[in-house]
């Protein structure tokens, strides 16, 4: 009996110690299964090497599938299983009620450009440290564009095609100086069914699947025309002439055959496969695609022949959609002090250097990115483009922003596929958005 009592007492003590230990740790819920996880693991190891026991970081990961819904349910239920959790720009409004705003340390203001910090802001408050950024590049085949810019026959044909399809005679330009019209003309020129001399089957590949992420890609076109979700008064303005023009650009290109017939089922992977096969001359695509496309083993047809610039200019300027992943503090956390200390460290140039070298994709200020540019040259453009051209639609961080993307994806793909007129699609979108974004 005495032995049993000793055993039970020891077990209770161990359990108590375990609980105390767990409470002292900072538990971080990260984005699983990709370079973000690899980056976070390295950063956490570096932090734990010098952190006090009570501040040491423990990482946990869900499955990616349904991540944001599970996270929303956990946050709403007041879960204390994690102190720091993942955030995404397009879900900020959904999580903000269940998170604590943070005060940015001075170091983080030197680490990230202002527009990048803004990807973690909602209602004027900062909710997280931006760890990864996604934006769009205009990808193009350097070998084809070089010939287009130098070959007199190609230039003449380019002028003929642009006049026939766009109503004005255009001349080939360097991609960094493209307007969206120049891009359209280039896409038409490199389409075999339009120009039998084209070395590629298609001039571009449009991601037109009914999928919210495809709307983000298209938004770079819309914003350059001057399109936005809402105006300053909070009114829905998706039926603006700018939005119409951007939708018509895709429709015109798709109907002209510049993009594969199955484009209405294309997303990130299918578009990369098309471009990687060497049968597409240009595409607007996520920055994350560059690594694989420029890999000689994965895509030998195009590796080493890919140029990337920011998306073309429109009447309202040059823009790229940006959204970030970041880490913020769970309102129900039991160790907020420890969580703040970890986030303050994570926002420093040293922490981001470790994170970037381990695979993460932070958009960093020029001074900080210079330290990692040799190993991660892609991050140079990421930071530059985000700072110069990045935008978030007005309302793009609202609590129901994801539903707005879903709604636009459904309605706009209906228009592109020919199931709805532009007026019908825009009217349905406007009505749905008014309902979703009402205060």
């Amino acid at each position, binding site marked *: 009996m005495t032995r049993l009592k000793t055993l039970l007492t020891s077990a209770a003590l161990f359990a108590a110690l375990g609980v105390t230990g767990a409470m002292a740790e900072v538990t971080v819920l990260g984005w699983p299964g990709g370079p973000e996880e690899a980056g976070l693991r390295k950063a956490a190891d570096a932090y734990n090497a010098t952190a006090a026991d009570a501040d040491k970081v423990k990482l946990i990961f869900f499955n990616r599938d*349904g991540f944001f*819904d599970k996270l*929303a*349910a956990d946050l*709403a*239920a007041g879960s204390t299983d994690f102190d720091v959790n993942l955030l995404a720009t397009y879900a900020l409004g*959904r999580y903000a*009620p269940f998170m604590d705003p943070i005060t940015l340390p001075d170091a983080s203001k030197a680490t990230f450009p202002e527009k990048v910090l803004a990807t973690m802001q909602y209602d004027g408050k900062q909710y997280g440290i931006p760890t990864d950024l996604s934006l769009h590049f205009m990808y193009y085949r350097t070998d084809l564009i070089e010939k287009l810019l130098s070959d007199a026959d190609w230039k003449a044909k380019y002028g003929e095609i642009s006049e026939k399809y766009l109503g004005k005679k255009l001349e080939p330009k360097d991609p960094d100086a493209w307007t969206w019209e120049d891009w359209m003309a280039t896409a038409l020129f490199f389409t075999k069914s339009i120009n039998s001399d084209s070395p590629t089957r298609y001039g571009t590949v449009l991601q*037109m*699947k*009914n*999928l*919210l992420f495809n709307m983000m890609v298209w938004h770079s076109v819309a914003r350059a025309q001057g399109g936005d979700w809402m105006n300053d008064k909070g009114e829905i303005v998706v039926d603006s002439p700018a939005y119409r023009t951007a939708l018509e650009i895709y429709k015109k290109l798709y109907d002209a055959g510049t993009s*594969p*017939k*199955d484009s*209405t*089922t294309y997303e990130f992977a*299918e578009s990369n*496969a*098309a471009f*990687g*096969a060497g*049968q597409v001359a240009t595409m607007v695509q996520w920055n994350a695609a560059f690594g694989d496309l420029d890999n000689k083993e994965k895509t030998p047809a195009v590796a080493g022949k890919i140029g990337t610039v920011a998306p073309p200019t429109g009447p309202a300027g040059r823009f790229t959609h940006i959204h970030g992943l970041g880490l913020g503090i769970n309102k129900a956390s039991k160790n907020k002090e420890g969580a703040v200390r970890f986030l303050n460290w994570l926002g420093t140039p040293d922490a981001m250097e470790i994170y970037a070298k381990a695979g993460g994709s932070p958009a960093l200020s020029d001074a900080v990115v210079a330290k990692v540019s040799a190993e991660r040259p892609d991050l140079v453009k990421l930071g530059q483009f985000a700072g110069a051209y990045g935008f978030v639609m007005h309302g793009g961080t609202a609590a129901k922003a*994801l*539903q707005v993307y*879903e709604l636009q994806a*459904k*309605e706009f*793909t*209906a*228009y*592109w*596929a*020919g*199931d*709805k007129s532009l007026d019908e699609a825009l009217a349905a979108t406007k009505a749905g958005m008014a309902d979703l974004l009402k205060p």
Partner: protein
Amino acid sequence: MPRTSRFEGRLLIAPLTVFLIALLGFPLVLDIIYSISRVGFENIRAPEPIGFSNYAKAIADPEFWAAAWFSLRFGLIVSVIQVVAGLGLAVFLAPLFAKRPWLIALLMLPMMVAPALVGLMYRLILHEFVGAVPYYLLEWYGDFPAFLGRDWAFTTLVVVETLQWTPFALLILHSSYAAISPDVREAAALDGARGRRLFFNIDLPLMMPAIGITFFIRFIDSFRVFDNLYTLVGPGAGGSTTSMSIYIYQAFFKVGDIGLAVAASMLLLVASFVVLWLINGLTARKAPL
């Protein structure tokens, strides 16, 4: 019935009753509560009762009816094709199966693949730049249809579903065909029945219950199509390939309107019960006089 026997009977049936209450009763009650509540992921533990407005919203939603029509049309078409093809194969291949029964196992292989993987597989096979089918069509004919595009998506889905699940129909109908007593056929032959007449007047009537059951199972399975459809084309441009399962999934996970999703699933439950009851009534074997 003696009291002890009644007690024993109740005791024996208790585990099954508890099992059914736990696995079917509890989710059903929860579903009923959610279907009459305003509930999303944020208040999933504290739904706010709102009466029957979720049901009204679902019924008034044209997309709900479009999804129901898609599922019904898809379920009926593929079930009919699978039963006809399965029946044809079962009859024409019967002599071959009698000599080489291992061939049946070979034909069953498509059923072993998870439907989601089948969807992914065809997405690759039909992709213009990595798929074999567009490649050879382009080589031979200089063009190919957009298999997953708006005009072809439904046909492609029907073909994919048929290729995967016709073996199921074949299996059941082959068993049914093989179970017909040779004596019956012999007697019919003595009366002069041959070929088509033997098939339509003897074999087919005897196989009708099996045909009905096969159709019944395939219809249920095809009506609730989700996995292969979702991985192959998703909800489609403008929601053109949204089945009932996808409608419910999207309302639940994408839109976060759990009340609407559950109300739609409850409506589907009721409709399914009525339809299946009718089909069951039509296909049930009549009791002998």
